[in-house]
């Protein structure tokens, strides 16, 4: 595979073969969690907006691979607060490091950074746009729980309008002949551009507002939080914030292989009594993020 300064900005930057390759490499890192193959490398984790889970997971991945981390987790104490452009910040950081992992509140910022950087850039979230390492860890979790990715029925629940994880997962799964259920209230339905994308790709989907309707016939139940920060109208948020609540008693007749995924953090959409059922996979899913991020870094730097 061509490693000539490749970045990961959007899940669509990876071909099906690259996705499968990264998932295989992640398996290897899950078996052997410390592999200091990047000794002597320096990787920048530059986070222009707060993030705990993603930043710690990426920094742990860098450390486990033997590289050093530099960076910031908040742009207020940097020259960005003096009015430096993103271009200048990226050019400057590029001079010091072998890779840049960045999160930024503006959409498209990571794509732009990858065009001005002289090293690979990994998008750790650009506003509501893309978060491809999340998508790859979702795929990894699906593969690990089902044994494969092909011909699965995936029920996406909650905020399908603003939730970037569902949009990217839908695009990535399109390589593997899935069937989708979109469970959402009218206000948070899957945007038409994604439904058009599925229509053009010949991938079947069904929309419902009832959580109960397709609990028993799906292989993956992908729950999402209704994210307050994505709403401009607080009234709209109030109407839909508690629309779904999954409890253990609703899982009596689900398929034995069914697993519940959630990008976390959860609020009220999954009751704590679900955590003890054999279907809950979301904490292990978050752990998988570490192996997948190790695999992404190793692959982009040409070490796997």
């Amino acid at each position: 595979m061509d490693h000539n300064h490749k970045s990961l900005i959007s899940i669509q930057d990876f071909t099906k073969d690259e996705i499968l390759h990264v998932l295989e490499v992640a398996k290897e890192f899950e078996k052997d969690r410390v592999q200091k193959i990047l000794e002597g490398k320096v990787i920048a984790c530059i986070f222009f907006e707060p993030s705990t889970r993603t930043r710690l997971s990426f920094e742990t991945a860098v450390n486990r691979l033997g590289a050093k981390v530099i960076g910031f987790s908040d742009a207020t104490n940097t020259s960005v607060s003096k009015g430096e452009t993103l271009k200048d910040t990226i050019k400057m950081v590029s001079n010091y490091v072998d890779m840049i992992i960045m999160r930024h509140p503006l959409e498209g910022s990571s794509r732009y950074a990858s065009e001005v950087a002289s090293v690979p850039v990994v998008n750790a979230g650009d506003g509501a746009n893309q978060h491809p390492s999340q998508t790859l860890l979702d795929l990894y979790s699906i593969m690990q729980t089902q044994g494969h990715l092909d011909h699965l029925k995936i029920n996406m629940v909650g905020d399908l309008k603003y939730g970037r994880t569902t949009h990217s997962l839908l695009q990535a799964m399109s390589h593997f002949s899935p069937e989708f259920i979109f469970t959402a209230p009218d206000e948070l339905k899957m945007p038409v551009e994604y439904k058009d994308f599925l229509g053009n790709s010949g991938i079947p989907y069904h929309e419902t507002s009832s959580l109960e309707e397709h609990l028993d016939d799906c292989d993956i139940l992908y729950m999402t939080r209704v994210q307050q920060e994505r709403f401009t109208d607080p009234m709209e948020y109030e109407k839909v914030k508690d629309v779904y609540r999954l409890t253990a008693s609703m899982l009596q007749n689900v398929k034995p292989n069914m697993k519940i995924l959630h990008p976390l953090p959860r609020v009220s959409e999954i009751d704590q009594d679900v955590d003890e059922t054999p279907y809950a996979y979301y904490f292990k899913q978050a752990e998988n993020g570490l192996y997948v991020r190790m695999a992404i870094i190793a692959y982009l730097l040409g070490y796997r």
Partner: protein
Amino acid sequence: MTHNSKELIVSALENGTVLDHIPAENVYKALDILDLKGLESQITIGINLNSKLYGKKGIIKIADKFFRDEELNKLALIAPDATVNIIRGFKVVEKKKLQMPSVVEGIAKCMNPKCITNHQPVRTRFTTIKCGNEILLHCHYCEKNSDIRGLF
């Protein structure tokens, strides 16, 4: 000197380019897209001219100026049915139809207020997508689709 009314509306061009059948309301946008404001050539602009086909149309005549196809094709975004007449020695030597460009750079603004191109000095870049009768612009940066009407 006396002129009939037709001559007053459309004076003849010796050499240059005539852009015809521009929707009347988009003539000013066409001037922007072709970046004609700094040009020293003589430019004749007609707006709200009667058109059998379109009702009201606009026309732009630019003396001694010939455009590359990729410059002209940008006009297809706002005037898909416009025709281009190349004039030499008072004669139409070539008539062209516009082709919708697959990539549009630097002329439209992204409609997404959270797009990086609306906050930093980044040149915009879109790919055009045909969606039924409508043309959508897909932002290379924020990956959102915008309706052409809102972009200029």
